[in-house]
């Protein structure tokens, strides 16, 4: 089922949780709402579910305005961060709950309920815990039961609020893969909220990036990672090196140093942010290259597959800290040492005008995923 939200606004006292958010979620996809805490992603999810009401704007489910309908009538499956399993009920009763609450006329027989519950428990690979109480399960198991419980009422959409947030790293990774496989099996339109960019990029078909109650970018994981639309998106997805500079002709000047991006179609003299990922920077030791930013190596961490070199900016970028990823062989070839002065030459550079973020986003475009 498709979900559409139009011009949603929500205010909590003086805090604006959502300002004019419009999004289109197509049928059958797994979409991640990604952003730092306080960006409004959970509020948006709760508004879609009907657990919270928007100050203005509409929620359309399957093209029909659902803004004024109660959670009960929206037929959404909601999974909470802390599971919210009923602790006085067994796993079986938890999963059966939704079916048993139906009005008598539409309620399935106890036999049908039993069959359905066992089928769902099999689906989440936990059919052997039916008689246990939630307190006897691990966090990962509880979340799977919570998911089975939400699926039991055959929801039209599945909404997950930080579903793996309360789990430890290893279980989180397992459940992530498991959720992806489950979605591939069921193809139910799903939205999940997360602040973990790795999780969003790994699991979702599409990623919606949010910040300060606004949508920053929408796209496939590859699109948003490869072509970030704003400085926020760039810095939120993965580690990043930031240069504060000014456009002068073809190049970006950082103090008296010069960075040469492929092309810059910004006006001469505009103040810019230039971004490069750690693996997109080369370290130059001899004076052969005139370009690049001067920096001093503060630390070399060479325990992984790649070596990480941390540097302090010199000249125009004093006070900045940079991070470069190169192979260990490269470190040896260049003979890098801590305390050495080098030049950083980005092989790929993204340049954003410094004021673009403020002016561009105020138009609140309708993002189609």
């Amino acid at each position: 089922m498709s979900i559409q939200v139009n011009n949603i606004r929500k205010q909590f006292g003086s805090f604006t949780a959502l300002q004019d958010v419009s999004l289109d979620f197509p049928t059958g996809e797994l979409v991640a709402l990604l952003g730092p805490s306080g960006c409004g992603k959970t509020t948006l999810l709760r508004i879609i579910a009907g657990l919270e009401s928007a100050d203005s704007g509409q929620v359309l489910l399957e093209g029909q305005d659902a803004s004024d309908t109660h959670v009960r009538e929206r037929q959404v499956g909601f999974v909470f961060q802390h599971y919210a399993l009923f602790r006085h009920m067994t796993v079986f009763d938890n999963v059966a709950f939704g079916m048993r609450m139906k009005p008598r006329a539409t309620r399935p027989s106890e036999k049908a309920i039993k069959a359905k519950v066992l089928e769902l428990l099999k689906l989440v690979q936990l059919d052997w815990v039916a008689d246990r109480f939630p307190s006897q399960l691990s966090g990962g198991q509880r979340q799977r039961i919570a998911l089975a419980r939400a699926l039991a009422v055959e929801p039209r959409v599945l909404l997950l609020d930080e579903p793996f947030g309360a789990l430890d790293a290893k279980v989180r990774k397992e459940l992530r893969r498991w959720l992806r496989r489950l979605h591939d099996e069921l193809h139910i339109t799903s939205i999940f909220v997360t602040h973990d960019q790795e999780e969003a990029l790994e699991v979702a078909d599409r990623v919606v990036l949010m910040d300060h109650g606004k949508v920053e970018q929408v796209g496939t994981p590859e699109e948003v990672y490869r072509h970030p639309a704003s400085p926020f998106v760039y810095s939120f997805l993965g580690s990043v090196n930031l240069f504060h500079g000014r456009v002068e002709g073809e190049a970006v000047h950082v103090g008296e140093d010069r960075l040469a991006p492929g092309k810059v179609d910004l006006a001469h003299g505009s103040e810019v942010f230039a971004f490069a990922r750690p693996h997109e920077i080369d370290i130059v030791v001899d004076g052969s290259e005139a370009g690049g930013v001067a920096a001093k190596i503060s630390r070399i961490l060479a325990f992984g597959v790649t070596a990480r070199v941390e540097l302090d900016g010199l000249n125009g970028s004093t006070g900045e800290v940079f991070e470069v990823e190169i192979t260990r062989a490269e470190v040896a070839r260049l003979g890098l040492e801590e305390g050495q002065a080098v030049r950083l030459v980005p092989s790929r550079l993204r340049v954003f005008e410094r004021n673009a973020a403020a002016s561009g986003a105020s138009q609140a475009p309708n993002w189609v995923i």
Partner: protein
Amino acid sequence: MASSSTSFRVLPGFGLSLGYTLGYLSLIVLIPLAAVFFKAGSLGFEHFWDAATSPRVLASYRLSFGASLIAAAINAVFGLMLAWVLVRYSFPGKRLVDALVDLPFALPTAVAGIALTALYAKNGWVGSVLEPLGIKVAFTPLGVLVALVFIGLPFVVRTVQPILEDLDTEYEEAAVSLGASRWQAFRYVVFPTLFPALLTGFALAFARAVGEYGSVIFIAGNIPMVSEITPLMIITKLEQYDYAGATAVAVVMLIFSFILLLIINGLQAWTAKRTGRAR
């Protein structure tokens, strides 16, 4: 050689603390109660039976236990509502209301009794309204009930309140998102969580009501066979220097109360087990 049957305990001082607990309990509770039984025993079975089952005393049992159970039940319902309102909503004067709940604890029971009597008597504020409607409260069993409800109120509120505060609204949201109505969410999700605490509150209110004396005797009117409570019967016998008779009634009362509290505790343990809280 260490015996293999004593398992290693993480918390030290088990023997000491158990010994202290038993000693303390004996001194404060068991020895006085044993003395009651001992004194009653001096009566011989025939006299004991006569003293404990005279018609007037039997009537007082009915009133005492009946009114106490009803009062505890009323307190369970309204105490739950009061706790709900205090936890779930915010309104001006909430702290004041919260403090007011404890007042029946703090008030000397005689003061409560006199105040209630003054209110519910024929010429009192409430009594003057109820009398023309044919409802007599003061000096009837109904008056006893009113006094017992009054003194039992804090127990249920104070036992349910912390549990309710711990109960995240997430559970109700989960229930509602699964299609449950407001009532179903309360009946199947909230209520079972609160039930053990509610039972505890009920038991405490009941126990307090059975033993209550001060606030009841003023409003009860103490009409033989109608509005005499068992503690009053005991006092009456004491005033007549019938110590053995008084203890006979006390023994019956003790046994009854103990059995009822035991049943309530058993019920609590049963629900706890059934809902996976205790293993």
